[in-house]
């Protein structure tokens, strides 16, 4: 259950914390895109990825996101690793090359490429987790929804003023995640007192335990949402009215510095992608295992 607290806002006062949430959201998207851009040759891609990885580690240290939390969330990924490996081993390899066979399972040839491909995917996923962790650990959920509302506000021009409604729905959903987690813990404790063991026992026993957790959770969540909507209406909430706001988002010099550097990185990678620049061509598999070049 403690894994769910991953990426919770941590109230420090670092450079990254002080950035404008709108800016952070945009930078996150740019970084995510750069991670998933694949330059033509493997070696160049790997070097770019390693560069981004180092950058993210630097950002994590700078924003004081705990590495322990990262490792904790990664420990849930081992299942995905095995699954991806199996897929890459058993789907036909389009770049089949007899020189790249690592070993045989029976008479089935397993290529180095399978490990290569799945490793690359996992690596990119880890970087994705790092980016989102940096964002959510340094930004208050409310600020994030304001940022999303700001990005959606141009919809007004098209007579489609959903920005506020969406942002309100989102902020309520985010607001109630910790509440529901507390509620879950409370119900888990109550049912543990009645002899449910959520960590041990056979599959049927565990499912039985989950039912005893989920039904009370739903009952209270539905009851809570009705109470909340009544309370909002009682205070005269109107989604179409113009509202003032306590927190005002500001774009400062810090944002400018951060944005320009991220934009430069993104632009650089995009240029390499467009011009198919294979600035380095080393076949790592050849290097390490002495097999013939890949492409």
């Amino acid at each position, binding site marked *: 259950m403690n894994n769910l607290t991953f990426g919770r806002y*941590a*109230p*420090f006062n670092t450079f990254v914390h002080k950035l404008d949430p709108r800016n952070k959201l945009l930078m996150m998207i740019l970084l995510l895109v750069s991670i998933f851009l694949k330059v033509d040759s493997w070696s160049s891609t790997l070097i770019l990825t390693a560069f981004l990885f180092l950058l993210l580690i630097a950002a994590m240290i700078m924003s004081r996101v705990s590495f322990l939390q990262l490792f904790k969330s990664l420990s849930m990924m081992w299942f995905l690793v095995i699954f991806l490996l199996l897929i890459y081993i058993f789907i036909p390899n389009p770049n089949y090359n007899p020189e790249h066979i690592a070993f045989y399972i029976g008479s089935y040839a397993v290529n180095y490429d399978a490990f290569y491909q799945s490793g690359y995917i996992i690596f990119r996923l880890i970087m994705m987790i790092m980016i989102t962790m940096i964002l959510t650990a340094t930004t208050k959920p409310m600020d994030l929804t304001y940022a999303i509302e700001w990005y959606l506000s141009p919809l007004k021009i098209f007579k489609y003023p959903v920005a506020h409604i969406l942002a309100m729905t989102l902020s309520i959903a985010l607001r109630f995640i910790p509440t529901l987690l507390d*509620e879950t813990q*409370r*119900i888990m*404790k*109550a*049912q*543990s*007192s*009645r*002899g*449910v*063991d959520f960590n041990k026992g056979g599959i049927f026993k565990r499912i039985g335990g989950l*039912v*005893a957790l989920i*039904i*009370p959770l739903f*009952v*209270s969540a539905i009851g809570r949402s009705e109470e909340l909507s009544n309370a909002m209406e009682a205070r005269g909430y109107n989604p179409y009215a113009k509202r003032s706001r306590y927190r005002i988002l500001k774009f400062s010099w810090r944002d400018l510095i951060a944005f320009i550097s991220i934009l430069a990185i993104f632009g650089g990678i995009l240029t390499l992608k467009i011009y198919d620049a294979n600035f380095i061509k080393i076949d790592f598999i050849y290097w390490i295992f002495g097999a013939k070049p890949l492409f």
Partner: protein
Amino acid sequence: MPIKINHLSYTYMKKTPNEVKALDDVSLEIPDKKITAIIGHTGSGKSTLIQTLNGLLTPTEGTVEVGDFVITNNPKKNKKIKELRKHISIVFQFPEYQLFDETVEKDVAFGPKNYGFKEEEALKKAHEALAKVGIDESFYKRSPFELSGGEKRRVAIAGIIAIDPDILILDEPTAGLDPHGSNIILNLISELNKSGKTIIIVTHDMNIVMNYSDHVIVLSDGKLAFEGVSSDLFNGDVSNYSIEIPKLFQFCKLLEEKGAKIEISKIRTIDDLFNQLKERK
């Protein structure tokens, strides 16, 4: 099963910026087969204390001894926790939120079934427990969600009683109930105590403390502030604990000041006062 707590500390969210020390070096004993009341203002560590008693929370420091079971700060050493929970059960605040099954009797039988009783035995235990809390047979096949608040609470308490623990912990069992509903539950508690169970009750209501408790523990900011009998507590200086002295106690105290020869430490209800006055006559 007596409970002994040695130098118990508990810290929430340890090693994060949100660290909170809920219990700070608490040592106390809870007497066997008595009703013990735990009081203290919100955030004083009452709920944390009761959760460490049956191993729902692992102490940060110190130990909890319940009979032969010892809970230490090393989770790996705390085996047999489930066995312990069979002997010491908690009825949480607003226990009606733990109801989930289709019918009342099935829901109450859920606990005994988890502790290894067969379907029929569990149902038998459920019926006994329901009878104890005053829920009659016409309710057995109804859905727990269509009951009234007070009935739900009684069914939820029956769900714990059906496990037949030696020690029963109740966290504000009367919160949000009408006087009739809370009387039923308080009578039930004293009945259970008479049948040989140790009761620990967390409450803000000093009338309950005066009328029912044999032993009182006051917590303040995670530290033990008072341990003893209720009359000593009310006689002493209570200004720091946000405690409202019961009207009955104030009345007895006034009577004593006016010269009535009564033993305040033995008075718990109006009946006690009446009997003492009658004897004096």
